[in-house]
């Protein structure tokens, strides 16, 4: 093993790196690419057919599910019903107070019940509340009891001499 100059090594490194990536493409890639492109093209119409059929089947399934849903009934509004603000009434429909089908949405049931009840309820007149203003004549202030003055006697504090405490103080 013989040490080499750093610049020689640069050239050697470049040569080895080139040799590591120098490789002749053994075959023409065009036939393989053409085959892959052709295979991809053949798969397209099948893919479109499958996708179209799938979409159609999904649409039919959704339609069947909607129609066969429990409680589903096509509603026909009587002429002019919406204009009067009255909800459409279906012949044979249960009154608002009856229990709605279990499959119906709770919010829809509540809204229908309230609407029908509101339509049937009478209008209740509410009288306006009269507010009487308070008179400020000062009578209340005079009737208040005068404040009592409490006198506190001063506390006499006798001085304590340390000698009188005896042994308690060291």
């Amino acid at each position, binding site marked *: 093993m013989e040490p080499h100059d750093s610049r020689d090594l640069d050239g050697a490194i470049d*040569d*080895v790196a080139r040799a590591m990536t120098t490789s002749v493409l053994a075959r023409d890639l065009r036939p393989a*690419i053409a085959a892959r492109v052709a295979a991809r093209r053949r798969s397209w119409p099948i893919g479109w057919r499958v996708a179209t059929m799938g979409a159609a089947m999904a649409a039919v399934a959704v339609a069947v599910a909607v129609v066969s849903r429990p409680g589903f009934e096509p509603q026909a509004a009587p002429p002019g019903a919406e204009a009067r603000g009255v909800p459409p009434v279906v012949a044979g429909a249960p009154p608002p107070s009856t229990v709605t089908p279990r499959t119906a949405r709770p919010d829809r049931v509540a809204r229908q019940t309230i609407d029908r009840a509101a339509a049937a309820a009478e209008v209740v007149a509410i009288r306006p509340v009269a507010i009487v203003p308070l008179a400020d004549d000062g009578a209340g202030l005079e009737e208040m009891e005068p404040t009592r003055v409490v006198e506190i006697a001063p506390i006499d504090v006798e001085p304590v001499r340390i000698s009188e405490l005896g042994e308690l103080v060291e």
Partner: protein
Amino acid sequence: MAPAFFFSRYPTVDGPARSTRCVTDDELVRLAQAGDAGAFDQLVVRHQAAVFRAALAALRAREDAEEAAQDALVRAWKNLAGFRGQSSFRTWLLAIAWNRAISRRRSLAAWFARRAPLADADGVAGCAAGPLDALGERELARQIAAAIEQLSPKLRDALLLAQSGDYGYDEVAAMLKVPVGTVKWRVSDARRRVKQRLSALGYVNRD
């Protein structure tokens, strides 16, 4: 949107004889975008070797590199309508090839087993030319190849692509999606690390 020739037959029946020797890549691309599959054929002929070597630099295995090159060319054909000419067709194609090769490298679980670094190093030592012939040291070439294999992927990719002799720094930068200056720095750093390893083995003259 797929190019017009996407719905045409590929490869097409030979059209009127046309010499493409003097036709530029840009003209071939325009023809291919207009539906001339023969023009795309010509582009494949021109660039398939460069695409293959870029993939080989990333994958280090011939079979994988060929697969990646095919992937890249098919993808380029599919996306040719989206090529607007911001870069040269070759740079655009090489970037696609590098992306395909890197994604393949990431997904290949057996990649580490396939590359067989020591066998490659022996092969490199045998086929290396230039100063190595003058020095006549197969062992040095083997050590250099081993040191290159041990570099981080970023440094190794930059070194192998830049020193392959097939690509300019701007093309390497487009492939690696980094600035040209970063490519040069990586190449320099890769050389420095290889020399460090060789120095530790006593190959570098410290005088």
